[in-house]
């Protein structure tokens, strides 16, 4: 009843490998086309919006321009609450919860004291809508365009990655 119970016949194996290669090529082509479409639809962002759990127990957000180089240093002021400061330089010996480096219009999380370091491994972001998420700290950094309405529809109520 089920063909899947039969051994694949050896005669057709060469043909199967050709089919595999066609499938692989089709996947890569699809990915390239998708990447091209996405690339054409993205624009360089102008601001980085950092959202973090503030001292009043609710999520606060601040926006910095991507055009000026510097560091956004995020520190835990009390358990589960963070504050953010901007500084043109960063001394690596000073401990910080998260450090977001802004250089050449890109934002990159260079340091974090969380266990998984997913945010640090995330590549630098620069196009509108891209974000770096530090899940253990509840901090998200999202690139936004000229008008803030670009991200207005983007309310995270749960981030689980």
């Amino acid at each position: 009843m089920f063909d899947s119970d039969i051994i694949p016949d050896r005669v057709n194996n060469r043909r199967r490998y050709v089919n595999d290669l066609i499938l692989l090529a089709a996947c890569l082509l699809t990915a390239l086309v998708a990447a091209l479409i996405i690339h054409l639809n993205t624009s360089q962002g102008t601001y980085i919006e950092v959202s973090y759990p503030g001292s009043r127990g609710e999520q606060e957000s601040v926006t910095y321009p991507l055009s000026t180089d510097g560091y956004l240093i995020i520190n835990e002021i009390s358990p589960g609450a963070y504050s953010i400061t901007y500084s043109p330089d960063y001394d690596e010996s000073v401990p910080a919860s998260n450090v977001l480096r802004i250089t050449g219009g890109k934002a990159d999380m260079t340091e974090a004291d969380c266990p998984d370091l997913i945010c640090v491994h995330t590549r630098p972001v620069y196009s509108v809508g891209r974000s770096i998420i530090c899940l253990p700290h509840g901090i998200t950094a999202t690139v936004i365009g000229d008008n803030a309405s670009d991200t207005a529809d983007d309310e995270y109520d749960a981030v689980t990655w």
Partner: protein
Amino acid sequence: MRDLDKIKRKPASDVAYMGLFLALSLILSYIESLIPFNFGIPGIKLGLANLCVVILLYVCGWREALCVDVLRVILSGFIFGNMSMILYSLAGAVLSFICMAIVHRIRRFSPMGVSLTGGVTHNIGQLIVAVFALGTTRIIYYIPVLIISGALTGALLGFIAGMVINRIERYTCTHIS
């Protein structure tokens, strides 16, 4: 001839294979968690455990493979992860399993093609869940990377699965030739 196959089929050996491959898939999940494999995009992984599902699809059948696939996701979720991880993995696993079973049934692809399909659709399934969980379509940006990584890791694992299948299929009781 088909009826004869059915009669000679030994379910006990299938159960043994299922247990064996379930255990193997859990070990592979563990090994995978030890390998630092990071491309800067969350969600990309090798998917070693899928090896077992592909092999089982060939040596036993789709029911047995599905059973092991679902069990391995739930068990490895409890052992190495958490509830949300089970949800993500299960969505990817079920979608990829359906697609792999279909591609396997067509019988025009080798294990490499089957596994490749699984890799790509697994990533797509996880992305779909992520879109719903995060309530944003922004992460669709990941799709090209996820397709490419799924295709490459899937093809690699499928190649290995093919070699294993060639060596063990003569011992399996399901196919008496």
